[in-house]
């Protein structure tokens, strides 16, 4: 498995993805624009609420190449945030205490050579830090073996993908051997105190469907994950977040290649839930890319849809403009509003 960029797939270009999503290249398929749905729900234009999450994507480099990855991440991707841009983020954070949560994502954020320095600096600002850790990175190289201790030291909330509690389905989505390495990594995190019920060191897992279907109910699946991981491996974690796959990047490519695109879009559209639309994560999040550009969310970032206001880059950051902007929406947004909704923290209703 390689990134779309490495294989020179046309979907490596954001405009190509948007062309498919917005001006369906498929005959007999003319889905209702997301904007109409928002209008029906009296949510258009979509506006921010209180913005308190500062999500920073510190690079597309990753040790994995998952089939569904919306970042098109992989070992071949060299785009990572430099220290100057990190410092700009720190300056914005220190001037804006309203960002109580800093969410670090990637790629594998830990592969950025300045990752530890950056975390230490954010920790000095006294914010709740989330790291989206893909688990296998903890086993990828000796230099990462002490990451659980590092996370513990800075009271980081670790959020990690595990598509299913069995090897077959996990490896089909994330690559051969990923399940076994993930289990070993959870063991390392549990060993330093993460994931235990009474512990303040939170390890939350993320479930996302390995195919063209919607996620299961979060409460029910969390119970089953907990039971299976405990019975089979004596592992513990705190919460399970159920996330819907958004039809962009590698997942979009897979949907088209496997003949599932129209069916999946229909499914998302039929499952549109106004209550979920009212709580989409872009209403309280700002997303920063490796090169410092600003977006409504990590998905709009991958589609290169910078904020619809003059603050397009961290160097132009103006909270009033950002607070007063309209959020850019498109057909991919149906992924956030289906059923119980979907965000980086799982269901939204």
């Amino acid at each position: 498995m390689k990134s779309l960029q490495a294989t020179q797939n046309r979907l490596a270009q954001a405009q190509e993805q948007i062309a498919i999503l917005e001006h369906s290249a498929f005959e007999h398929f003319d889905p209702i624009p997301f904007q109409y749905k928002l209008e029906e729900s009296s949510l258009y234009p979509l506006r921010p609420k209180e913005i308190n999450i500062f999500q920073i994507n510190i690079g597309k480099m990753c040790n994995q190449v998952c089939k569904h990855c919306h970042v098109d991440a992989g070992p071949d991707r060299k785009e990572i945030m430099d220290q100057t841009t990190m410092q700009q983020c720190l300056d914005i954070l220190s001037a804006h205490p309203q960002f109580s949560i800093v969410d670090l994502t990637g790629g594998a954020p830990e592969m950025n050579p300045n990752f530890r320095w950056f975390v230490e600096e954010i920790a000095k600002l006294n914010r709740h830090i989330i790291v989206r850790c893909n688990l296998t990175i903890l086993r990828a190289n000796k230099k990462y073996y002490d990451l659980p201790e590092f996370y513990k030291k800075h009271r980081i909330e670790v959020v990690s993908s595990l598509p299913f509690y069995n090897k077959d389905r996990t490896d089909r989505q994330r690559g051969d051997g990923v399940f076994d390495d993930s289990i070993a990594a959870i063991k390392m995190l549990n060993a330093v105190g993460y994931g235990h019920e009474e512990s303040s060191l939170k390890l939350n897992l993320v479930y996302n469907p390995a195919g063209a279907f919607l996620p299961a109910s979060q409460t029910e699946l969390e119970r089953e994950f907990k039971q299976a991981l405990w019975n089979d491996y004596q592992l513990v974690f705190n919460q399970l977040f159920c996330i819907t796959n958004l039809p962009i990047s590698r997942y979009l490519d897979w949907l088209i290649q496997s003949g599932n695109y129209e069916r999946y879009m229909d499914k998302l559209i039929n499952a549109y839930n106004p209550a979920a639309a009212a709580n989409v994560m872009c209403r309280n999040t700002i997303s920063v890319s490796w090169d410092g550009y600003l977006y409504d969310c990590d998905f709009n970032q991958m589609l290169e849809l910078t904020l619809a206001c003059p603050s397009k880059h961290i160097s132009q950051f103006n909270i009033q403009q950002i607070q007063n902007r309209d959020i850019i929406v498109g057909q991919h947004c149906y992924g956030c509003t289906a059923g119980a909704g979907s965000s980086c923290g799982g269901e939204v209703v």
Partner: protein
Amino acid sequence: MANHYYNSEDLKKFGQVGQFQKEMADKFFAWYGTVFQDSNLSAKEKSIIALAVAHAVQCPYCIEAYTADAYEKGYSEAQMMEAVHVASAIKGGAALVHGVQMMNKAKEIAM
């Protein structure tokens, strides 16, 4: 005119059966909706029963719909296949148990 007896696209048209008989269709869909709600059995348990029955009645529409539904309810592939085995065992057993009927009849008419 489609040249297959079964077309996956037709599943989307299920709701249109009301065009020829609205009252009964409305009652059916209302009842169907109630049947699959969480009640004394959970919606999740009902989903795997539906998947098994879909195989017993060999309905391609239901198999498509309830395979996706089983995934969406969080079932593993192994659980889904076990449900199909349950349906098959009942179907096979139902055929075989009629062997007793055959034996009875055979004994009635044989010397």
